[in-house]
């Protein structure tokens, strides 16, 4: 049924354990390494969110282990406000960078982009290995911040590197949120707990992460442009490839801006420059220039940091979610047994979202004192992202319409993605308007909005991808019954966590406060706060079912064949798991579009991309026959 041509593989299969599983240049091993990194990082981030929830619900409670581990930050086991704020910072940083950026792109993208375009490997295999190891070093550096700030001894030892490196605040890392706003983040130890060595490590970690992501993005783009197999035209690529490609372009153009900003911030801290530090600053009872620990600064612009940060920060949220959109489109078509509705529109929508994403960073800064005219421009551009987002949503619904849907766990999570994307995205239309954002900024409605749309929706995309591609990656199915338990509890759980947060936001509950007991207007909120915490504990607990399912199924799962889901794209044309060079030396030749399901007159209800001698009538799905 299919024809092939000889491929020239540039590196032989490694034989030793270290070259095969650790310092591997095989994109599949590197992809799994990225996923493992994300699986480790997400546990750290999740435990931190759990601690935050415990503090918010039962402030002043003695949590015995904490008192032992962090005698300064949680004396007698009671978290102090600085400890809470460092949890906020580290939770955000770890989740955004080391989970939402690594797993969707570095993990699944690395594993499946070369296979789906019919290549033996990435364009630059060594660079690929390097980008993973650089990212891992970034993760180790951010974890070091926990020890440098959390432990007196290590903190003092670290101070020998220079005055700005002093740690030991008793917190679990720096304080500054994942946005690290200047000028506090630029001043050093003088600005208070968590502003010393931990902040330096935070900046260094992110700079390292930027480098790793840039190397990865370069590799993705080159691979996609140059390594596609015979017949794999751009418009025959699966939507996943389009999503990974657009994500790579976003990363390529936005991470360097953060890197530049990070260098400036670090120079303010270690070289005493004044890029972001204004003159006449009065902090911690000291005036700038009045004390050897607080040298004179003049003329810097704290808002400049916000611009540089958010110019990166907004594309970053699309870096997190676009791969999930790609996976969702792919999985919905496969299990609805229908072509993706409006393939071309989907491709253009991905590009439109990516492109517009570069022009809307100002909507994070409406309360920074920007001109109302700029605010209107940013508002209009922000709301216009609703158009391609709606195109995607309606096309997903169009794909489902009239399909013979197979409710596998992967399909359930893909449907969950659509649901969460809509539920979280709809508040974006509210927050994107400057007049509405002004009162709502820095309340829980923002927390609810971005957690639903960029956090949980992206993670649902990755869950869907995991259940869908696990049989390909390990040759075994994940347990469907455990998967269903995982899906339904997680799905109900995340709504139970984040829906009440909208209500809290409308009550005026501010973000990043460690307790609300002092505020009369929030006395009625404690029931809701506790409800969210209980939901969070249940949702976190059920994730261990997922972890168990992954590791148990790797060894004990039911065996899967080459194409267990009756799907059409190239990864299903090769054994599960694929051999070292993906197609055993013979590259497939592509004859059809990626989603030719339910083709009239075809022998099966799906036509694989490599099938020859099958007529696909023009107008079936997106691409017709060639």
């Amino acid at each position, binding site marked *: 049924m299919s024809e092939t*041509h000889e491929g*020239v593989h540039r590196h032989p299969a490694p034989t030793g354990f270290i070259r095969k599983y650790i310092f591997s240049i095989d994109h599949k091993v590197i992809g799994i390494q990225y996923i493992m990194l994300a699986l480790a990082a997400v546990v750290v981030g999740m435990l931190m969110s759990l601690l935050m929830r415990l503090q918010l619900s039962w402030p002043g409670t003695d949590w015995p282990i904490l008192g032992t581990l962090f005698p300064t930050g949680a004396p007698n086991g009671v978290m102090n406000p600085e400890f809470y704020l460092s949890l906020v910072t580290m939770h955000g940083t770890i989740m955004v960078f080391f989970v939402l950026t690594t797993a969707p792109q570095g993990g699944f993208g690395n594993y499946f982009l070369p296979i789906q*375009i*019919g290549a033996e490997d990435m*364009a*630059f295999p060594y660079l690929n290995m390097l980008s993973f190891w650089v990212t891992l070093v970034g993760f180790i550096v951010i974890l070091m911040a926990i020890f440098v700030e959390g432990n007196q001894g290590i903190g003092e030892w670290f101070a020998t590197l220079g005055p700005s490196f002093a740690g030991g605040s008793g917190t679990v890392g720096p304080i500054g949120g994942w946005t690290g706003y200047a000028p506090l983040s630029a001043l050093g130890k003088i600005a208070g707990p968590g502003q010393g060595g931990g902040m330096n490590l935070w900046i260094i970690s992110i700079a390292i992460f930027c480098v790793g992501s*840039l190397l990865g*993005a*370069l*590799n993705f*783009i*080159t*691979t*996609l*442009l*140059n*390594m*596609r*197999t*015979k*017949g*794999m*035209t*751009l*418009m025959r690529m699966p939507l996943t490839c389009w999503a990974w490609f657009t994500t790579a372009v976003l990363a*390529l*153009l*936005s991470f*360097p*801006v953060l*890197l*530049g*900003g990070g*260098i*400036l911030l670090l*120079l303010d801290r270690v*070289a*005493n*420059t*004044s*890029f972001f530090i*204004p*003159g006449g600053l009065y902090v911690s009872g000291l005036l700038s220039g009045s004390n050897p620990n607080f040298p004179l600064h*003049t*003329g*810097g*612009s704290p808002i*400049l940091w916000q*611009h*540089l940060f958010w*110019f990166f920060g907004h594309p970053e949220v699309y870096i997190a979610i676009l791969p999930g959109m790609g996976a969702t489109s792919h999985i919905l078509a496969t299990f609805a047994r229908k072509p993706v509705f409006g393939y*071309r529109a989907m491709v253009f929508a991905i590009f439109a979202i990516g492109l517009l994403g570069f022009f809307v960073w100002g909507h994070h800064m409406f309360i920074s004192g920007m001109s109302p005219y700029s605010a209107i421009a940013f508002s209009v551009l922000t709301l216009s992202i609703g158009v391609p987002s709606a195109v995607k949503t309606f096309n997903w619904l169009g794909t489902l319409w009239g399909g013979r849907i197979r409710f596998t766990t992967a399909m359930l999570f893909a449907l969950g993605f659509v649901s969460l994307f809509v539920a979280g995205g709809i508040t974006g239309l509210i927050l994107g308007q400057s007049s509405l954002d002004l009162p709502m900024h820095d309340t829980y409605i923002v927390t609810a909005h971005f957690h639903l749309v960029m956090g949980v929706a992206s993670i649902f995309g990755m869950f869907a991808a995991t259940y869908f591609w696990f049989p390909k990656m390990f040759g075994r199915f994940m347990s469907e019954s455990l998967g269903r338990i995982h899906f339904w509890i997680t799905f109900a759980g995340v709504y139970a966590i984040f829906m009440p947060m909208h209500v809290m936001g409308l009550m005026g509950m501010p973000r990043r406060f460690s307790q609300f007991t002092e505020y009369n207007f929030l006395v009625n909120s404690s029931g809701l706060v506790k409800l969210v915490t209980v939901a969070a504990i249940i949702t976190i607990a059920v994730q261990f079912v997922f972890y168990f399912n992954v590791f148990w199924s790797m060894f004990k799962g039911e065996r899967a064949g080459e194409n267990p889901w009756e799907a059409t794209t190239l990864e299903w044309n090769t054994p599960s798991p694929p051999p070292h060079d993906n197609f055993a030396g013979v590259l497939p030749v*592509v004859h059809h*579009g990626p989603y030719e399901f339910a083709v009239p007159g075809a022998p099966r209800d799906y036509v694989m991309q490599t099938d020859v001698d099958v007529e696909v009538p*023009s*107008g079936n799905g*997106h*691409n*017709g026959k*060639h």
Partner: protein
Amino acid sequence: MATMVSTRPVRSTGAGTGPKVPGPNGNGSKRHDGFPDPDANWNRYRIGMWVGLASVAMMFTSLSSAYIVRSASSNDWAALPMPGILLASTALILGSSATLEVARRKLKAALSVPYTKWLFVTVMLGLGFLAAQIFAWRQLAGRGIYVASNPHSSFFYLLTGAHAVHLVGGLLGLTFLWLRSRRHVIDKTLIARRKAATDAVSIYWHFMDALWIYLFLLLFLWR
């Protein structure tokens, strides 16, 4: 030449049905036999270099925008006098671009000995540029102008330093080409690969040249 993708237009045959003729972009759409084409295969070096330079350009764009915003945000901006040696470094890097271009043409004409020689000259000129930059920094430091002295000096050290770090990468690439150039190659694929690698390093080096001119103008005209 360093073409990224062919510019043959896609023929579209009607709305919504997609291109009937496979498009021209990248390997995937090559119709003719003999696929994969070894020359197109090594195009990845050229494409990768352009893509990588896009990110380098974005980093310098972010620093430039910070420069422009900071220059207007306060009245503490005191423009540096231009160290005269920078004119020499500008001449050196312009010269290195020219010699590299000569080397690349020699390689295309399959003249491997002159190729090696001109590469060597390029490396020497690049090192000369770096030495001139270090001299300029020392000269300013000798006059008591350091990174934190004032915002313009901060940006001067930062931008020239970041450029020098990138330039060292280019020098490593050139040295690598030079070391490899002394190895005799007959195999067709390896020749194609050497040409692609030389193209990629040249693209990078010319970019560093243009970037320097841009930074020089930014630092000493926009102040």
